């Protein structure tokens, strides 16, 4: 690279001329500013989380009181879905499939990766913006289209997808129109994630502030970096699978349809010769890395907040980083632990059980490091910290219950029962959701220049913490009793399920109460925009670079390009004047 190149004339027109004032649309809607896009992502994600939650609350009624008409709301949903207020199985299956899809792909991913990634990552590495602002905008609007498609699918004849978020073939292939919409929606969402991922990786590598080496990264940056790679390399296979399932549905091909299928007495008129398990392989090839996409940003957030509120460096930062990278790598070769009951032989089973056990170790290391980091701290219990600390045992429960599932002999009685449901909700709901809540309370001041109300925050936390456990703990009991998931009547028909029925009631009431405890949060979220206590650049006395920017940061983020002089968590350095030495202070 020659001097001349470096000194090459700066382009007169950058991607878009920021210099002159932009109109409302370019500034807030079709913006290319990573902060605006980040907030767009976050709010979209939150709204979808809320929507997915509402779907689930409907289901919880049916699970608690199978066949009992749902007062008020039940009538509004129409004869096609809830005739006389009682839920039809097709509608239950719609709700289930869409709850899963929406929560994972339209709720958590947009909030954790799109939202926090976009808003925080560039600030934390001291970048003026993302490397490709336009692509960033496109990726958000792809997500938006995907979301619209998914929502729209509820209104097509026959309703939305009904084959579970896993969309197993052949069921999904012979299912109604909603499935086609699901596939198209997924293709939008995948495209969005791919564009986002390559943007994050490039930004992280190229736009790091001077002196910010990888080992000086805040753990959150590492988490986002690894996550981006998971998205980049794991999503395309599902895209391919999606295209093939689309072909099976609209062009009548038989990628996933073996020969000789007989649907309700009638031979299926298709060529056949396909392989049903191919779909499962390609789906889980994505979906296992995907579950780590759901957790890693959460872990990153928790790490930031714990370091900040214990006022001491993270314990074992390096080991955490290595574990993280190893985790990301391993997550590509454990997918078939979701397919233990599809008839795999000893060799396959041994391989995938082993990798599954191996992948649990880095998680243990990270959790252990986070827990030990608490020791010797001077712990401040503000709302972000409460959520962050609660994350640890909640993820602990979820993670630990992954182990029996990972040993396929133990998985025999547990597979596809509520035990699995409980397992992963402990990691995603009181796990990831708590981490994300912590993040919202923590970075809200940076985004708005105001702090969210603490009292409301604490109410929100304690309420959610109790309710989450009331919702999901019973599911372990139900699952151990052997009750299958995806039963629209919670297993009313089965004698062995009878003893568990009342637990469904408990769980449901837990869920509805949980909803009540989100109200203070929603109110707080909007109220604080105008009325919250105003704060300066660095309300939490934090060390990482994002806190050197004004709150909210102007376009271009930093007054003058920041520089990193030390590691990310220099808290309570012996002999230093104050109890924190920011990365960005010489």
């Amino acid at each position, binding site marked *: *690279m*020659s001097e*001349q*190149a470096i000194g*090459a004339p700066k382009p007169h027109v950058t991607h878009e001329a920021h210099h002159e004032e932009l109109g409302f649309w370019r500034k807030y809607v079709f913006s290319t500013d990573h902060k605006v896009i980040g907030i767009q992502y976050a709010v979209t994600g939150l709204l979808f989380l809320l929507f997915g939650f509402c779907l689930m609350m409907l289901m919880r009624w049916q699970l608690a009181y199978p066949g009992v008409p749902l007062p008020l709301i039940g009538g509004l949903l129409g004869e096609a879905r809830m005739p006389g207020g009682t839920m039809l199985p097709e509608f239950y299956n719609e709700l289930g499939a869409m709850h899963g899809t929406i929560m994972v792909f339209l709720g958590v991913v947009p909030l954790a990766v799109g939202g926090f990634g976009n808003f925080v990552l560039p600030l934390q590495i001291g970048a003026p913006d993302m490397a490709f602002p336009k692509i960033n905008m496109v990726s958000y609007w792809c997500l938006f289209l995907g979301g619209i498609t998914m929502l729209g699918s509820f209104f097509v004849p026959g309703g939305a997808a009904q084959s579970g978020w896993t969309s197993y073939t052949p069921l999904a292939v012979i299912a109604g129109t909603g499935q086609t919409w699901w596939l198209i929606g997924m293709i939008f969402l995948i495209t969005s994630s791919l564009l986002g991922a390559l943007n994050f990786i490039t930004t992280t*590598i190229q736009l790091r502030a001077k002196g910010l080496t990888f080992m000086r990264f805040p753990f959150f940056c590492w988490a986002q970096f690894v996550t981006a*790679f998971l998205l980049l*390399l794991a999503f395309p*296979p599902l895209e391919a699978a999606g295209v093939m399932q689309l072909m099976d549905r609209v062009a009548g091909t038989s990628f996933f349809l*073996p020969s000789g299928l007989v649907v309700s007495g009638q031979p299926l008129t298709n060529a056949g010769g396909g*392989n049903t*398990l*191919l779909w499962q*392989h390609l789906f889980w*090839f994505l979906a296992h890395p995907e579950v780590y996409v759901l957790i890693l940003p959460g872990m990153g957030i928790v790490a930031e907040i714990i370091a900040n509120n214990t006022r001491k460096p993270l314990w074992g930062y390096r080991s955490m980083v290595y574990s993280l990278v190893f985790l990301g790598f391993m997550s*590509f*070769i454990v997918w*078939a632990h979701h397919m233990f009951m*599809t*008839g*795999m*032989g*000893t*060799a*396959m*089973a041994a391989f995938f059980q082993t990798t599954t056990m191996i992948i649990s170790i880095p998680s243990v290391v990270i959790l252990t490091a986070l827990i030990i980091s608490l020791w010797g701290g001077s712990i401040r219990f503000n709302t972000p910290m409460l959520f962050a600390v609660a994350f640890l045992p909640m993820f602990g429960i979820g993670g630990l219950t992954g182990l029996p599932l990972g040993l396929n002999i133990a998985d025999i009685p547990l597979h596809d029962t509520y035990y699995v449901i409980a397992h992963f909700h402990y990691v995603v709901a009181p796990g990831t959701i708590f981490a994300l809540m912590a993040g919202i309370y923590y970075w809200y001041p940076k985004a708005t220049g105001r702090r969210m109300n603490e009292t409301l925050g604490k109410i929100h936390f304690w309420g959610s913490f109790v309710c989450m456990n009331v919702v999901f703990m019973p599911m372990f009991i139900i699952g151990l009793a052997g009750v299958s998931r995806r039963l629209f009547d919670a297993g009313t028909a089965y004698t062995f399920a009878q003893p568990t029925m009342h637990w469904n009631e408990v769980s449901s009431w837990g869920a509805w109460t949980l909803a009540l405890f989100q109200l203070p949060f929603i109110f707080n979220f909007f109220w604080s925009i105008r009325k919250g206590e105003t704060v300066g650049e660095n309300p939490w006395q934090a060390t990482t670079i994002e806190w050197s920017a004004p709150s909210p940061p102007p376009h271009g983020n930093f007054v003058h390009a920041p520089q990193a002089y030390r590691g990310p968590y220099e808290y309570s350095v012996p002999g230093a004047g104050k109890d924190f030495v920011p990365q960005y202070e010489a």
Partner: protein
Amino acid sequence: MASDHATDMTSDHAVDIDKHVRVYITVFVALMVLTIVTVAVSRYHFPVPVAVTVALIVATIKGSLVACYFMHLISEKKLIYAVLALTVAFFAVLLALPVLTYSDGYWIR
């Protein structure tokens, strides 16, 4: 090197570029020849295993030529190599998929 030229317009490198251009032409010829070769080979209906190996070997050579010279991979930065190495690893996992499926258990049709 090659990749840097993009950002390097000094004329003394024009010579260098001429060298490149010559390489491109040779590669082009090679690709043409190899194309003819595969087609020709496929004319004699060799048993499938042989045919597959030959076809894939030729295709791989052609592919590498394109990648190395047209896409300048022969002289790229370490970072790009790293990314591609990772990709290749997972690509291998993908291709192992059929093998897995038919290796053991009752996945075999």
